[in-house]
């Protein structure tokens, strides 16, 4: 699925990294615990989270996850948006809760990014 389709399905606002919207994504990982993202998430997956701080962007960057979606209408600070731009990360925000985001994306073909 193209990331722009993810944006449309979640009615998300794009905050940085628009150039990634034409790229394909196969899987996602929904979690507020960054320790677990670093342990269990596959690379090249979308990170969906309700946690908003700079360490979320560091986590995504280090784990080679190029797109982050903040759920529950959470909005990153301008400093975080600038940091995401500098690191070329796609960052979006959606009104849906984490459960709904995962359900919508899963129903439309995205798989869980569980590193087994």
């Amino acid at each position, binding site marked *: 699925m193209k990331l722009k389709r993810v944006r449309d399905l979640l009615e998300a606002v794009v905050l940085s990294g628009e150039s990634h919207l034409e790229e394909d994504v196969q899987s996602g990982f929904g979690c507020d615990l*960054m*320790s677990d993202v*670093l342990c269990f998430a596959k690379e090249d997956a979308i990170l969906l989270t309700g*946690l908003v701080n*700079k*360490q*979320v962007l*560091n986590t995504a960057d*280090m*784990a080679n996850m190029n797109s982050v979606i903040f759920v529950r209408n959470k909005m990153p600070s301008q400093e975080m948006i600038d940091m995401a731009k500098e690191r070329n990360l796609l960052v979006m925000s959606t009104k849906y809760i984490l459960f709904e985001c995962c359900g919508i994306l899963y129903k439309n073909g995205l798989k869980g990014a569980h590193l087994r």
Partner: protein
Amino acid sequence: MSYELIFDVKRGDFDTAGEASRKIKRTLQQLGVSNKVIRKVSIAGYEGEMNLAIHSSGGKILLEVGEEELVLTIEDSGPGIANIDLAMTAGWSTAGDEVRQMGFGAGMGLPNMKNNADNFQISSKVGEGTKIVMKFLV
């Protein structure tokens, strides 16, 4: 070793924590290291950097780049780990609420560092400090 980088990490500075790992990742990309290895080093290095910021009284990260392996050394000046076996247990952590609210302190850091490294050595003495040496085959 043909290339070395060293970074200081301060205790409790969660605004800049992650900077060293980012620079290490960018350096390895510029050196043409494979993405698979970069991801392992980045994750292990970032876990180590967060551990320094969360638990230590300050420390250093050293990256040594050789022909056949990368060596990442994470060393602090205290407080030291009383029981390393316990600290290596997945899910065990002494992190406080502030750290947990940031999405860390789940007790997965040390086991995850060990999982990502091809060789992992940890030594620690209470009152002196902790040293972790991780090797990654290129």
